[in-house]
């Protein structure tokens, strides 16, 4: 129903009631309290949507009650105060009703307000929930995408790990194996499942375990993220069947969260090491064979052919000593022949000396070096300063020959390349090793660039020669700063090579 119509209807009903009640009131005598029915109209007024309506009706009711008291016919025997009391009661009732109506309306308003705010809150909350929901959906999508990418990446990595020939092993910060690829399984002989969860020590020979742990700790704290393991020493791995193999290992670390994880790549270099050893021993055998052959040829030339030539000359001179044996002309011819023979003999002697310096066997290394230095100085005009310690015991033949050849090669290099004006040659025998050093004041060179070029081969052969008698060869040079070569050879028989590399099992 229309609000306005209902209101006007209400007004009409209330007016009608008021008029009827008033007429009844003034028609009845005092003592009938029908005026109290005004309260009904006040109650009806509470139905109006105007809050003031009950008050207006109550006001009208009060007025009509007072007027009614004046106009109603008196009742005999009824005291006046009783009539006044009745009417006062009615008025009080009317206003009590107004008060109640007002209270009720107030409570309603408050309730409405609460309702309204509740609704507002609900709307707000719903909006929030919707946005949270959207975010969640986005996050879930993102996560799914990330997971897919991760799975793809993992798949790729797994593929790489699977086909890699090298052993690739991942450990956590407590050195427990968390990943072990096919290559590792093949190399070490463990199934992947067997290795997972075990300390990496499982794959190391016992003597390396303590060191390895401390190396890893150092590396964990180091700034670089990857390094080659022990590049200067040999590393060994331990297979399931207890055999060891020489290895080349690199390690990298990745720190996600608090603790780093380590990835180790291990490669079996047994074959490489074997080949290197074979090459080295082959080179050394070759050199020994070459020296042996040279010595043989030298001996042949010097000790046999040259001796025979000398004896031929002795025979010729004996012939010449007898003046009656030949004519003057023949004598001159024989003399010329003898001179030519002497020349040939000299040439053969020089040749033999090049093949093998017999002075080394006859007079020892110090005399041989002094002789070589003096001859070289005389030929080149370059000053040599030689300081040699007399060796208490004669050196083993191979060591003496090695030092002699190194000196020979060095002096030849100095003559060809160095443009030096002074060479210092020192041979000392401190403690258990013999040390040879040769330094010049020449133009020097950059060792980085010269290796492999014309000087390179000579250096390689010197180095190899020294290595084959267990010694150490160092060359230091800078452009403009001269060159110095140092050779140290242990005399006790223990070689540098063996003391610097890890012993086998």
């Amino acid at each position, binding site marked *: 129903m229309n609000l306005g119509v209902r209101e006007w209807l209400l007004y009409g009903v209330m007016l009608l009631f008021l008029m009827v009640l008033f007429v009844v009131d003034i028609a009845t005598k005092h003592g009938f309290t029908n005026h109290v029915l005004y309260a009904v109209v006040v109650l009806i007024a509470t139905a109006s949507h105007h809050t003031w309506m009950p008050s207006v009706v109550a006001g009208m009711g009060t007025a009509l009650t007072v007027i009614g008291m004046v106009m109603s016919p008196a009742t005999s025997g009824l005291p006046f105060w009783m009539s006044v009391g009745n009417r006062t009661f009615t008025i009080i009732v009317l206003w009590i009703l107004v008060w109640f109506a007002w209270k009720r309306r107030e409570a309603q308003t408050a309730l409405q307000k609460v309702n309204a705010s509740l609704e507002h809150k609900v709307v707000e909350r719903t909006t929030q929930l919707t946005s949270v929901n959207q975010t969640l959906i986005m996050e879930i999508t993102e996560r799914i995408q990330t997971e897919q990418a991760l799975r793809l990446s993992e798949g790729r990595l797994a593929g790489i790990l699977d086909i890699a020939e090298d052993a690739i092993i991942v450990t956590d910060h407590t050195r427990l194996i968390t990943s072990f690829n096919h290559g590792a399984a093949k190399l070490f002989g463990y199934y992947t499942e067997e290795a997972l969860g075990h300390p990496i020590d499982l794959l190391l020979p016992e003597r390396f375990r303590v060191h390895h742990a401390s190396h890893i700790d150092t590396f964990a704290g180091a700034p670089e993220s990857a390094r080659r393991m022990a590049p200067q020493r040999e590393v060994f791995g331990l297979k399931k069947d207890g055999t060891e193999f020489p290895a080349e290992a690199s390690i990298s670390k990745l720190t996600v969260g608090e603790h780093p994880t380590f990835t180790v790549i291990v490669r079996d270099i047994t074959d490489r090491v074997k080949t290197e050893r074979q090459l080295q021993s082959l080179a050394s055998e070759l050199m020994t064979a070459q020296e042996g052959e040279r010595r043989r040829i030298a001996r042949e030339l010097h000790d046999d052919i040259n001796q025979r030539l000398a004896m031929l000359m002795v025979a010729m001179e004996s012939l010449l000593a007898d003046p009656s044996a030949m004519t003057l002309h023949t004598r001159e011819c024989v003399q010329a022949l003898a001179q030519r023979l002497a020349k040939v003999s000299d040439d053969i002697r020089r040749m033999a000396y090049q093949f093998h310096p017999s002075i080394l066997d006859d007079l020892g290394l110090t005399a041989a070096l002094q002789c070589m230095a003096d001859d070289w100085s005389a030929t080149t005009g370059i000053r040599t*300063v030689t300081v040699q310690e007399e060796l208490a015991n004669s050196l083993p033949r191979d060591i003496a020959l090695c030092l002699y050849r190194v000196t020979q090669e060095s002096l030849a290099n100095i003559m060809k390349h160095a443009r030096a004006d002074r060479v210092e040659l020192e041979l000392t025998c401190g403690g258990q090793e013999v040390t040879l050093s040769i330094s010049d004041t020449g133009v020097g060179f950059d060792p980085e660039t010269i290796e492999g070029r014309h000087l390179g081969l000579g250096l390689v052969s010197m180095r190899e020669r020294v290595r084959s008698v267990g010694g150490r060869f160092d060359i230091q040079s800078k452009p403009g700063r001269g060159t110095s070569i140092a050779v140290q050879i242990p005399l006790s028989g223990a070689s540098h090579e063996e003391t610097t590399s890890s012993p086998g099992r």
Partner: protein
Amino acid sequence: MKKPRVLLADDHTFVLEGFKKLLEEQCDLVGFVEDGRTLVEVAVQLQPDLVILDISMPRLNGIEAAKKLRKQLPRVKLIFVTMHADSAYVNEAFKAGASGYLLKRSAATELVQAVQSAMSDHFYVTPLIAKDVVTSFLKPGLAPLPTIDDLTARQREILQLTAEGFSAKEIADQLKISHRTVEFHKAKVMEQLDFHTTADLVKYAIAHGLVTPS
């Protein structure tokens, strides 16, 4: 005059044959040996007046054999007849106690003369190499007094550190070489410069500006 008793040592039989022919008139050839070790043994038995020997011989070379011989038979004369013309060989030969040194190729004309010289307590060096020998003997005498230039860089380092008051051990630690090597260099420098005390070394180092006097 009594013929000298001669022992011949050479590992080539045809050389021995040749020498035999050259010497048999003048000498009493008591024996022939073919290596250094046998030479010493036989010489001690036969007590020859003179030994003619080569340097390059198996088992024990002529120089070493000569040293041993001189110890056991101080009065025996030694003549080297070899193929080696280097003055280093000649030096070593005379250090080992030789009385003569000649080359095989001139043996025919010189051997008898060398034997005679040796037997009359003279020395004989073949004219073929006499020039080299004399030059090499003269070299140290002709050279000016040793200078700082005759020292190697290492020797100068050690000289400087010694003058600065470091002990041989401290020097060895600094230069990362053995203690013995430092001692060797120090002794060698003293010998080269003809010094007898460390004080001389210090003075020399100061004089040559290696150290400044404190």
